[in-house]
């Protein structure tokens, strides 16, 4: 097994309970009312901030992370030691300029980087929740973020921005709290998870459930981890984040450290060894049960269904300024998904801009150096800031 890319001295499992970032704790008097019908209490939410909140408290930006992301959007990750996952977009002088705006990024409910989730300790039993944790929805995540903003004394957001599952949260924010969102930028996302996407997620979950080390979700109690299953889930998902042209350009059919095939099931091809590496490093920083819960949250997301089947109704009367963005080679959330959102916003007479970025990098383009995305985001955010008087 390859050497894990870990910063020495930090145990990834400990991040679930005592993360390397600020944490807002809510007691029995402030439960999180979850869609599953459970009042979660006590609970906590871990977050990071950058920049300074101005006197009028009008420059707050909420960055919503994707499925396997976390609160470390623009700072060094405590486990991997790598830079922030969106430091191309967030930071001093970047489109989400931390010299001008107060940026908040919180770990979502159900995840494993310090916000309460299946890897957290259940106060009723003294051991990890595991599958006793209630099913999480995107709306639960947003409700939790809203409670964090209340705690921080932030009434409304100048900007709510995120990609993929983060984009779902942005849409949910705009639908649940329209008066609290001045501008919204959902990127590479959809108003619902497609059948194909649910299918891919199910394959990943089944890989985890089939790992003998999963132990019915009680692996933390017995001191094992379903690393093989979670690694396979990540390998499968990772393919959906890329595109055929990008895979071909990066790997083609090239062999890894050899001149001829070995006639075995070794990782002969570069793409194989790349995927194995992705699987292994992911296991080091992510909890398998959290992966089950968060993929399920995306599967359940259907904003139109929550509004009588008409997506436009989710945005009725909104005054939020929207900028929707998609990428030409994204087959996980193709441009048609973004267009459906744009059409609904048009039907609701909302101010909406839409950009389709030409890219061959697939779904992951939103995390990569994509100049057209950066410049469009810069233009939209700067104009919104002028409008807000920032």
């Amino acid at each position, binding site marked *: 097994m390859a050497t894990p890319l870990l910063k020495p001295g930090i145990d990834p499992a400990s991040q679930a309970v005592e993360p390397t970032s600020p944490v807002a704790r809510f007691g029995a008097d402030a439960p999180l009312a979850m869609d599953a019908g459970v009042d979660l209490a006590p609970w906590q939410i871990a977050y990071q901030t950058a920049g300074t909140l101005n006197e009028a408290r009008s420059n707050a930006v909420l960055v919503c992370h994707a499925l396997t992301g976390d609160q470390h959007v623009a700072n060094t990750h405590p486990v991997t030691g790598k830079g922030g996952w969106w430091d191309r977009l967030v930071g001093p002088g970047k489109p989400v300029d931390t010299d001008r705006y107060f940026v908040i990024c919180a770990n979502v409910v159900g995840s494993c980087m310090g916000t309460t989730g299946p890897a957290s300790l259940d106060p009723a039993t003294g051991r990890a929740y595991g599958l006793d944790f209630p099913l999480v929805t995107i709306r639960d995540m947003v409700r939790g973020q809203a409670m964090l903003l209340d705690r921080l004394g932030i009434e409304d957001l100048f900007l709510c921005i995120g990609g993929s599952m983060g984009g779902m949260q942005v849409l949910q924010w705009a639908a649940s709290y329209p008066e609290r969102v001045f501008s919204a930028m959902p990127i590479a996302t959809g108003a619902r998870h497609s059948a194909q996407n649910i299918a891919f997620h199910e394959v990943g979950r089944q890989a985890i459930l089939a790992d003998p080390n999963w132990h019915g979700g009680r692996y933390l109690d017995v001191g094992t981890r379903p690393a093989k299953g979670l690694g396979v889930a990540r390998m499968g998902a990772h393919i959906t984040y890329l595109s055929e042209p990008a895979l071909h350009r990066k790997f083609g059919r090239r062999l890894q450290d050899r001149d001829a095939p070995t006639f075995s099931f070794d990782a002969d091809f570069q793409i194989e060894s790349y995927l194995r590496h992705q699987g292994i490093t992911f296991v080091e920083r992510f909890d398998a049960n959290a992966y089950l819960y968060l993929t399920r949250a995306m599967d359940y997301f259907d904003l139109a269904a929550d509004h009588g089947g008409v997506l436009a109704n989710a945005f009725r009367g909104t005054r939020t*300024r*929207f*900028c929707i963005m998609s990428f030409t080679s994204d087959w996980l959330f193709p441009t048609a998904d973004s*267009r459906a959102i*744009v*059409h609904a916003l*048009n*039907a609701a*007479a909302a*101010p*909406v*801009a*839409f*950009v*389709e*970025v*030409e890219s061959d990098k697939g779904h992951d383009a939103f995390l990569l150096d994509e100049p*057209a995305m950066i*410049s*469009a985001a*810069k*233009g*939209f955010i*700067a*104009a*919104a800031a*002028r*409008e807000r008087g920032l």
Partner: protein
Amino acid sequence: MNASAPLAPAILPQDATGSSRIDHLVMLNLVEPGSRVLDVGCGDGSLLALLRDRRGVDGRGIELSREGVNACLAHGLPVIQGDADTDLAAYPDDAFDYVILSQTIQATRQPKEVLEHLLRIGRHAIVSFPNFGHWRVRSELLLRGRMPMTDTLPDPWYATPNIHHCTIRDFVGLCRLVGARIERASALDASGHPMRFALPWWVWNLVGTQGVFLLRRR
């Protein structure tokens, strides 16, 4: 049709003082202050910005090119990257007070359907287009036997985005076909100024380089 009788009052710009394009100023005068406007094929958004700044218009745009969309974003204009031929179907009825199609109808694949959408989506439609009936266009074809290239039709035949040319008279015919009432109309002369006299239609059709029409569904 009676080609010599004016069908509608002509359009004249009332404040043609700024540095903006004359055809934009002509359109500016057709739009009620504070109204909702959709500009289809809005380019860099200069008309939308003019309408917002001078008329307090709540404007939206559709533009095919990413460069155009980015310029609009930087001006704070809500503009959607998209195609008039396919995207207008998604807009609900009566969503806008005015839908503008400026120098774009000749580049659409289905001009009749696009015009019908404009009249459905907006209470009014404003359409401008290069007049293929202009005398220079006619003479290029008649005397030289070549596809015309003029100020309003600057591209050679193999590189033009325009696929459905029409004359002012053709457009009036299309308006009748789709049940559009021409509320006001104008032809711009070679320098881009509205022709100032109540000239008969055949003169407009011959000497106008472009037509500007304010339409309303019947």
